[in-house]
């Protein structure tokens, strides 16, 4: 009889182990299958340390329209929208209720700074240390741009480069309407 008991426990343990393994793999698959953040979802909290050393966190972004642009110096499509983004920033910079943030994804600082210099970008930009911000937004590549409304919700997502200045301003103006 004791031999039968041991075997039963062994089987139960084996099944339990297999079941937990399946649950873990399932959870990982579910999290991997989630696409980029979509309209209506709450934007994740994040802090960006800019190349100048300034830290921009949730407190600075609260109650403002925030444009988060993921880019990299090695990314050719990013160059297509760089000038338009800077022009858009110059349009809204004086208002105070619109913030642009450039999040530099897996890049080297030297090339990133050269890129910012080349396109004369003046809005805050910083490296995405540990790719934490990229993962929090569940981004899938560069360039990708997220617009966050004053309530902290994702209001607009652009996969790929903006085609022109009007495309950017149209998306932002919609969020500034009373």
């Amino acid at each position, binding site marked *: 009889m004791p031999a039968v008991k041991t075997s039963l426990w062994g089987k139960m343990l084996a099944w339990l*182990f297999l079941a937990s393994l399946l649950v873990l793999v399932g959870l990982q698959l579910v999290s991997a299958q989630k696409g980029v953040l979509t309209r209506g979802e709450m934007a994740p909290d994040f802090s960006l340390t800019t190349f100048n050393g300034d830290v921009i966190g949730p407190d600075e972004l609260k109650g403002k329209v925030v444009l988060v642009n993921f880019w990299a*110096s090695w990314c050719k499509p990013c160059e297509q929208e760089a000038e338009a983004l800077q022009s858009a920033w110059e349009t809204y910079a004086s208002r105070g209720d619109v913030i642009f943030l450039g999040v530099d994804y897996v890049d*080297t600082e030297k090339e990133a700074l050269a890129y910012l210099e080349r396109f004369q970008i003046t809005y805050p930009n910083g*490296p995405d240390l*540990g*790719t934490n911000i990229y*993962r929090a937004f569940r981004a899938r590549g560069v360039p990708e741009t997220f617009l966050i409304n004053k309530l902290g919700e994702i209001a607009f997502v652009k996969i790929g480069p903006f085609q022109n200045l009007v495309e950017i301003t149209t998306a932002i103006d919609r969020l500034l309407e009373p």
Partner: protein
Amino acid sequence: MKILALSLFVLLTCAIVIGSAAAQGEGPTPSPDEVNAIAANLYCPVCANVPLDACGTAACAQWRQQIADLLTQGYSEQQIYDYFVQQYGPSVLATPPAEGFNWLIYLLPPTLVIFAAFFLGRGLLKWKKPAGNKPFVSRNVMSSKYSRQLEKQLKDRR
């Protein structure tokens, strides 16, 4: 003549001082092999499953240059890995660090091997003892009362 000799002496002294200062600040330029030896253990998140030494994208070229720059600055191999993890996250490493969910990668294969060995061993042991050799009813299982009754009935038959 004296002025010329003095100027040469000053120039030489300056060259030696500047040269030694530069040598102290930066190491020798690393060879491509040295850079690739480290790059082979790193993966660029942009290019799926391609080690950094074999990756041809602009991002990978920048990263290899970064490794060369860090080696020139005197970083050790481990310090370079640490730098890349800090900058770009642990997914850049060829072998993920043994922490959190990553433990599964290290624990699962040996656990599965142990389980497989256990069940295989058990199966082999059962296979070794053919069912025909086993007594139909174990004596231990039978109570002495029934045993005595059975033996009595067998005797009566004879």
